[in-house]
């Protein structure tokens, strides 16, 4: 099966600082790919390159096997790539439906088509088995952290997206809400989406991911199946870039 998203030899510099060196990443439908790495390893930069916020300097960007060029968040969204940012990028002063359709509102003639939007939002939330939200016309400011995360994820899957990238979705959540969000992440993959999960938390990574991609100082140290590695091996990959046969040798992939 062709991977939904494949990156090869991605380089990215900001001025004199090279942040990404020859990075390769493969993301498959129906799987959760965990993207791990220490602070400054280049996780966020890589995701922003995928999302069209930063242009890549060189390298190949393949979507469903075809080379593409993504220059803006809109172009990424048009392909079916949605990113849920760490700060969620929700407007507190708008309600759930308004947030989910922000920037892509349905219209009937010149005016907003609230009925259709409400129905689509309700259907998407139901398909994700979200029942915690009292009313979809609630303002986002009145939601708990987990609920906000859920709305942000629902916003991402509303558009028949194929790849959903989640930037540290559980970082600010409590134990119970983390479980809730991880369950949702798993469900997205089970529905056939390709999910990329950025996380610092090894428990989260091992709880939901199928594959792990470890970045070390801007290089892809290893991409492995989660079932083939242990906690400590992944921690070694993150902190030193190698673990036994896995990882980088003298800063170059083995």
């Amino acid at each position, binding site marked *: 099966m062709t991977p939904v998203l494949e990156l090869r030899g991605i380089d990215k510099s900001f001025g004199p600082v090279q942040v990404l060196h020859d990075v390769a990443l493969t993301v498959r439908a129906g799987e959760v790919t965990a993207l791990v790495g220490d602070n400054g390893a280049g996780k966020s930069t890589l995701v922003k390159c995928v999302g069209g916020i930063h242009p890549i300097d060189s390298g190949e960007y393949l979507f469903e096997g075809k080379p593409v060029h993504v220059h803006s968040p809109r172009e990424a969204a048009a392909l079916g790539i949605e990113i849920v940012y760490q*700060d969620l990028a929700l*407007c507190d*002063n708008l309600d759930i439906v*308004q947030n989910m359709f*922000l*920037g892509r509102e349905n219209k009937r003639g010149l005016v907003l088509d609230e009925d259709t939007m409400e129905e689509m939002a309700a259907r998407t939330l139901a398909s994700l088995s979200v029942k915690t939200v*009292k009313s979809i016309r*609630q303002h986002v400011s009145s939601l708990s952290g987990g609920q906000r995360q859920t709305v942000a994820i629902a916003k991402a899957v509303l558009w028949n997206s194929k790849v959903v990238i989640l930037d540290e979705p559980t970082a600010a959540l409590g134990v*119970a809400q983390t479980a809730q969000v991880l369950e949702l992440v798993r469900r997205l993959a089970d529905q056939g989406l390709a999910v990329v999960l950025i996380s610092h938390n090894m428990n989260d990574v091992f709880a939901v991911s199928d594959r792990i991609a470890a970045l070390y100082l801007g290089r892809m140290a290893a991409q492995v199946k989660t079932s083939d590695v242990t906690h400590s091996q992944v921690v070694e990959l993150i902190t030193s870039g190698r673990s036994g046969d896995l990882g980088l040798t003298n800063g170059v992939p083995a």
Partner: protein
Amino acid sequence: MTESRGPQAEKAPQAEKAPQAENAPSPGNAPEAEKAPPADEHARVEAQARKPVARPGPLARLGEARHLGLLAALALLVVVGLVTRPENFATASNLVSILSLAATIGVITVGMTFVIIGGGIDLSVGSIMALASVWATTLATQSYGPFVMIVCAVLVGAGAGLVNGLLISYGRMVPFIATLAMFVAARGLAERMSDRKTQLVQQDNQMIVELSTTRVLGLPLLVFVFALVVAAGWVLLNRTTFGRRTYAVGGNPEAARLAGIDVRRHTVLLYALSGLCCGIAAVLIMARTTTGSSTHGQLYELDAIAAVIIGGTLLAGGRGTIMGSILGLLIFTLITNLFILNGLNTSDQLIAKGLIIVVAVLLQRRGLESRT
């Protein structure tokens, strides 16, 4: 099953102190607990998540009914008028004078509401209106007839607003500073063009003056123009993508940008819209005073901003309504009217207006705090 979870949810704080105890109710699936949370945990999580939302305070509900408070204040002022000046207050001519006065600033207030909801401020509205009225009443413009005068006033207003918007969006200037510059410069330009003289609307162009002299259903036409602008503003703000995005840009510009909204372009449009409203207001003031003058509209910006704030629009942006602003404006206009009718000092009137702004903002803050 879910019912038996009820009391557990109540004990949530205890459960959090001992995280290991969390999976205790389902010892059977302990090995799977890491892979996926068990179903009954999900129910417990839901119950916990639902809790904080389920209790809207009474004060919050008061905040929701903010328009009711404004209407009550308006009704109170009407009662005061009826009691103190029964013979003058409830007359048709007084009603017409209140509405005519409200119409000019009212049109500006509609534009100001958009700008403030979008997270900005426009100090230049009064000056832009003066400039538009002067430009439209120059001998050269008047020679083309009343329609060109109206188009001229509206275009000058929108153009000045556009300059504001471009300076703020692409010149990266703070709205306060950019519109302060326009506030000073537009009035200067208006003085230049008119030589500080009042320019009369000529006999051939009486059609403009007829806006205030022709009455339909007892009300001058300019009141209907005002009503039309309010209705158009309401539809634009509540029923179109432009309005929705105005709230988003004012509430969280970064989120709006990530959602694919062109925040800069939207900001330009907001100020252009405010300028356009000033142009329409210029037509109304030409109709009312039969003149164009560089002294028109002094302190209008403060009245418009005050009306918007009293109407419940957040000065920080992201929250507000057209109806609130109009009610706020009517309250202000009514106070002016009552002071004049009762022959009271205008200085006392200013003090009263100041107090009203303070009280309105304090009440709103209570409403907001109880909601978050």
